[in-house]
């Protein structure tokens, strides 16, 4: 059995850990608020962009010669996967969920005999993936220095993707990120961005005839790269909200566990203190009796 002093030390150490996790929870909660706000504010832009693209791709006259970013290269050989994770740890299953989803997809691809290329955004994803897929990672981007997700960073990522597409280094591009549902649930998502999948929601479908200036093709060529930036930016916003949410609930759990541990240790401490006192009393009494 541990001595009284040892127990005292352990209680103090658990308490100080609890203080740290509590503080981290508070910080995450404050950051979550901001991240959630910006994710919500960013939504109209990506929705509008999506709508316009939808309208355009329906109105396009010559489907054969549509921009490659929309129609694809016609092949399905090389897959580029952009795995977006956080730069910091201690956020529960946040990163591992994305990685798990991505790894499942990777093994599916290799079963089908497709070639795989990986870009990791965020250092945690790179750390976890480089052990197994190290030779497949062609680029590792990290935005450790930017405080919040910003559009400028998203454009950097999309520039790299578009450059590689124009060099025909891949046929299909998928991004992996966590979608923010609420503080305790984040859903890992895989979204194909090249070639663009136009989801035809019937209710969104408009029968309007638009006038285009200049013509559809030219607008599309200009718009599609922007759309990639927008999609990546959206993923980054969702990701940062998810990260803070995951961290908040992980730290909440940790704080609670630390509290339970302190309680248990305190009971043990009190018991052994009582036992020591009783032992001493017995010794004194039996000493007095023997006189």
């Amino acid at each position, binding site marked *: 059995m541990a001595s009284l002093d040892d127990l005292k030390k352990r209680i103090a150490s658990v308490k100080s850990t609890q203080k740290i996790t509590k503080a981290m929870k508070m910080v995450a909660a404050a950051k979550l608020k901001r991240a959630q706000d910006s994710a919500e504010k960013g939504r109209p832009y990506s929705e*509008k962009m999506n*709508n316009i693209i939808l309208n355009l791709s329906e109105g396009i006259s010559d489907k054969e010669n549509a921009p490659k970013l929309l129609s694809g290269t016609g092949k399905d050989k090389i897959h580029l996967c952009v795995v977006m994770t956080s730069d910091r740890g201690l956020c529960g299953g946040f990163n591992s969920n994305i990685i798990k989803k991505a790894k499942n997809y990777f093994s599916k691809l290799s079963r089908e005999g497709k070639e795989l290329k990986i870009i990791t955004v965020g250092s945690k994803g790179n750390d976890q993936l480089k052990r197994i897929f190290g030779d497949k990672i062609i680029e590792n981007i990290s935005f450790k220095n930017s405080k919040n997700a910003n559009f400028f960073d998203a454009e950097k990522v999309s520039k790299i993707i578009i450059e590689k597409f124009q060099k025909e280094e891949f046929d299909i591009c998928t991004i992996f990120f966590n979608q923010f549902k609420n503080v305790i649930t984040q859903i890992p998502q895989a979204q194909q961005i090249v070639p663009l999948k136009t989801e035809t929601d019937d209710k969104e479908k408009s029968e309007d005839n638009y006038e285009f*200036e*200049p013509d559809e093709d030219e607008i599309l060529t200009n718009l599609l790269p922007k759309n990639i930036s927008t999609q990546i930016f959206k993923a980054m916003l969702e990701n940062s909200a998810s990260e803070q949410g995951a961290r908040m609930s992980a730290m909440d759990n940790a704080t609670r566990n630390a509290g339970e541990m302190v309680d248990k240790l305190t009971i043990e401490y009190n018991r052994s203190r009582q036992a020591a006192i009783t032992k001493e009393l017995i010794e004194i009494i039996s000493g007095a009796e023997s006189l």
Partner: protein
Amino acid sequence: MTEEFKLEVVNPEKSFLLKEDVTEVVVPAFEGEMGILKDHISIISFLKPGIIKVYSKSGEEKYYVEDGIIEFKNNNLSILTSSIFSVKDIEKNKIDEMLKVAEKESAKDNISDQAKFLIDQKIEVLRSIN
């Protein structure tokens, strides 16, 4: 009959501007300036660097944009742009800074004609508001 329609300007971070009482908007469309009044036909176009002029009851407002897409439908004008500033509020040294960057870009000889055209346009607009 009112002659007003709704204008919404959004950038990736937030909804930048929302006005319900706009009477006319002049945008620097790619093929020339375009004025939009109420009941304009549905149109999609994209922007080159220039000044967006918004006329409403409260007067005239000017915004500088570098690029963007506009969509007009059912008397709703949406402008999507990643770079927009109010001409009134923009600081002078920021314009100078942007001018410097643009001029440096323009001096490069490995850019395409279209890119050069856009940058020259940008320089011209920046000089005019400076």
